[in-house]
């Protein structure tokens, strides 16, 4: 029964990876229609279906271990969800322990950023749990702004530092 369920989920996740692109496209049109002004919406509406499929396929092949976020947000963008779907498909086939490290950019206060990093890592953990990865396998650690990967004080580097790393 469990085996059957797992394979079902695996199949589904592959399907959903494709489904995601459709969904993304649909949401992009939605956003255009409702005139949403959020940054992510602006970005995703610029992505055509073909390239979105490419992104999804690519991320399914070479697994993404780092997931990025908007300023002061822990929302999982559609690209992040696609990468996580692919990760989940692999993780379901083994039972290794996973550490999710949450990070923030340097702006604002350190302790708040510590909490923000944790919120991001938990958002990823919850998403993976729903994809069938036992929450008991996942440990969440936040480093806040203490472990930047990019060191300059500009928006490009900030974007690289607002991340969750799967280890």
């Amino acid at each position: 029964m469990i085996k059957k369920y797992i394979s079902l989920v695996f199949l589904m996740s592959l399907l959903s990876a494709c489904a995601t692109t459709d969904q993304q496209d649909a949401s992009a049109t939605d956003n255009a229609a409702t005139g949403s002004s959020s940054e992510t919406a602006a970005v995703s509406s610029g992505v055509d279906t073909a390239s979105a499929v490419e992104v999804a396929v690519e991320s399914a092949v070479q697994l993404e271990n780092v997931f990025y976020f908007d300023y002061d947000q822990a929302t999982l963008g559609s690209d992040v969800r696609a990468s996580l779907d692919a990760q989940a498909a692999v993780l379901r086939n083994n039972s290794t322990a996973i550490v999710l490290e949450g990070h923030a950019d340097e702006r604002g206060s350190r302790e708040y950023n510590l909490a923000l990093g944790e919120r991001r890592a938990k958002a990823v953990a919850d998403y993976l749990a729903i994809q069938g990865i036992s929450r008991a396998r996942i440990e969440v650690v936040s480093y806040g702004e203490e472990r930047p990967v990019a060191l300059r004080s500009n928006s490009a580097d900030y974007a690289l530092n607002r991340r969750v790393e799967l280890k």
Partner: protein
Amino acid sequence: MRVNFRFYVCLIVFFFSGLSAADLVIEVTDWVKDPTKIAIVPFHNRGREVQQDIAAVIAADLTRSGQFSVLDRDDMLSSPSHAEEVHFRDWRALGVDYLLIGRSENRRNKMVVKYSLFDVHTQRALLANEIRAGRDAERAIAHKLSDAVFEKLTGIRGAFSTRMLYVSAQRNELGVSSYRLILADADGANAREILRSSEPILSPAWSADGKQIAYVSFETQRPAIYQQIIATGERKKLTNFSGLNSAPAWSPDGKHMAMVLSKDGNPDIYLMNLATAELQKITHHSAIDTEPSWLPDGKSLVFTSDRGGKPQIYQFTLADKSVKRLTFKGRYNAKASLMPDGKSMVMVHGDEQGYHIAWQELATGRHLILTSSSLDESPSIAPNGSMLLYATKYAGRGVLAAVSVDGGIKFRLPSPSSDVREPAWSPY
């Protein structure tokens, strides 16, 4: 006068550069409009040679307060060390309001410093006293003397004899970081390492009696809160729950530690009874609650919460468990810290220009932005409430800086070799 300032800044830089590499260097970047003019005559010494120029340390202290301009030594016409050697007319001619003279005796086991402070206009002695200490205690004596002069001339208790904690981070060529918790005098001198780790160190905090500290260390790959006695180095792990263990803050009576734990799923503020290790959860909210800071009366705390969508400062009152939002200006207000009188606070304030240190009066909501750099954080107030230390970025590197509570005086304490951050000014 500007020239003299520059000279003194140079002097200070020169002065400190001879010290250990971990020491901070002080650059005064902004002064009050009309500083008090004082001359500090080099102290005459008898006995063993002194290692430190007491008059120079005092000059540096008073300059750093921003409220004094110190006369250039080269301009002095004489160097009296006894009252009878003072010719007030000369000092008046130099435009000096006050004059400090003194002499030291450095014996084998002790050091005695006698000093006098004169009002040049009335020609009267305002202070005439002596300080005794162990041998080679020049810096400690100099800071005490600065405290006495500062209090006499401003009416505000001096905080030159206090200390500070800060975190220093360094990355080597291989990209490996090393973090150090440093304890130093309030002027950055006498820096010594309390803890070194390859994992982050955060949130240093003082007990109200200044004898113990608390901090967060990731040395076990997970955050944990530690409590440490400074004198003995003895330490104790207070918490290492799963999730966040952060932002320790000692209650004014020393009995409780406020802290942030996310063991129940999201960050909330807890009080730990330090005698029993009993935990009491005081905020219950699905949003982020963090950065608790006590009001001096110990009856309430302020904290940062994003329960309103953006981080803002809230006040929690222990008696009735009420929560009240305090900040309404700006899209980002965090890490508040109360002034010693409990009537106002400073915090990190984010607006279109970046992140500054701002001051706010609790009763009226009156608001003042104190700093103009854009990545300012971690404000920590001097025990006399006159200045506050904060962390900022200067030339791409983390530095400490200080600003007076009215925003008028500023100085930087750049470290020669590492990123420094999270200053915590000790109590008296």
